[in-house]
């Protein structure tokens, strides 16, 4: 996977802190999901674009959620691996960002992430 490849990740409103109207992502948005995969999930934007899947489609079942982008390079720089999550046969864009997520790692992801869609409070 190329370092420039953009990954998308849905962000629940609980993971956002507002300071003077600016949405700041909490580092917990980049915590590993469990101790099985040691990973958080994201979506490969190149695969999505090839399949004609747009951001709005990935968000469509999750009203109020936001979407951020990071790059594969961001993950590699933090000693993480990015691999397609082949167990998810329903979503070919699904990838795992694998590796230990210490606080500095999560913080760096939160700082690197760029908003594509900000969450709404209705979520």
């Amino acid at each position: 996977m190329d370092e420039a490849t953009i990954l998308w990740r849905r962000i629940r409103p609980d993971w956002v802190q507002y300071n003077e109207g600016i949405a700041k992502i909490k580092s917990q948005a980049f915590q590993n999901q469990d101790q099985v995969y040691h990973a958080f999930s994201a979506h490969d934007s190149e695969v999505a674009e090839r399949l004609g899947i747009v951001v709005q489609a990935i968000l469509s079942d999750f009203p109020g959620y936001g979407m951020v982008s990071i790059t594969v390079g961001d993950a590699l720089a933090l000693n993480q691996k990015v691999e397609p999550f082949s167990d998810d046969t329903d979503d070919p864009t699904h990838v795992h960002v694998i590796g230990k997520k210490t606080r500095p790692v999560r913080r760096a992801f939160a700082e690197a992430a760029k908003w594509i869609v900000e969450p709404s409070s209705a979520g």
Partner: protein
Amino acid sequence: MKTRRKTSSAPHALSKRWTPLPWCYSYGQSSASTSEAVVSQDAVRSFERIVQVAIETDDSSGLGKFKEIENEIVGYSEMPAGWDSYNSKKVSFKAIELATMLAGFIFQEFKLIPVPAPMSSGGVSLEYVSEHIELEFEIFDRSNVTVSLLNTQTDELIEYTKPILDVFDEPRVYEFLSNDN
């Protein structure tokens, strides 16, 4: 160790005062011992002081903000499994109870209010952030709390996982909390 406030308190004393409320013991596999029951009575009185101290000092805005955060944490119990949209676990009742107790204790001792967040793994995170130091408690259950203390200037990280009763054993945690008022 120098502190700007609460100079009469030492880390060891803080650890001794920190006792989660009795209902957290109900999740243990064995029933509470006599000594635990005695400690729990102290804990009840300690908790009652949280409200009392806040009222006596007329710190209504601080208490109001704390209650808001406490309600936010309690609200995590209403989120179903998969709430993060990526197969997350339901936030456990244990984690919610312990997080509100720990936040309450720190509010009582230091008048600090955390930034909470639910965790995909089913826990609750409490963050206390100053200009250069970030303290985080990741609370899963009473025997499993990960504490991270990060100096963002030097990138020095102290990280350990302990039972909730022992989270204040690291002196620098106390030092940060007492200096960050």
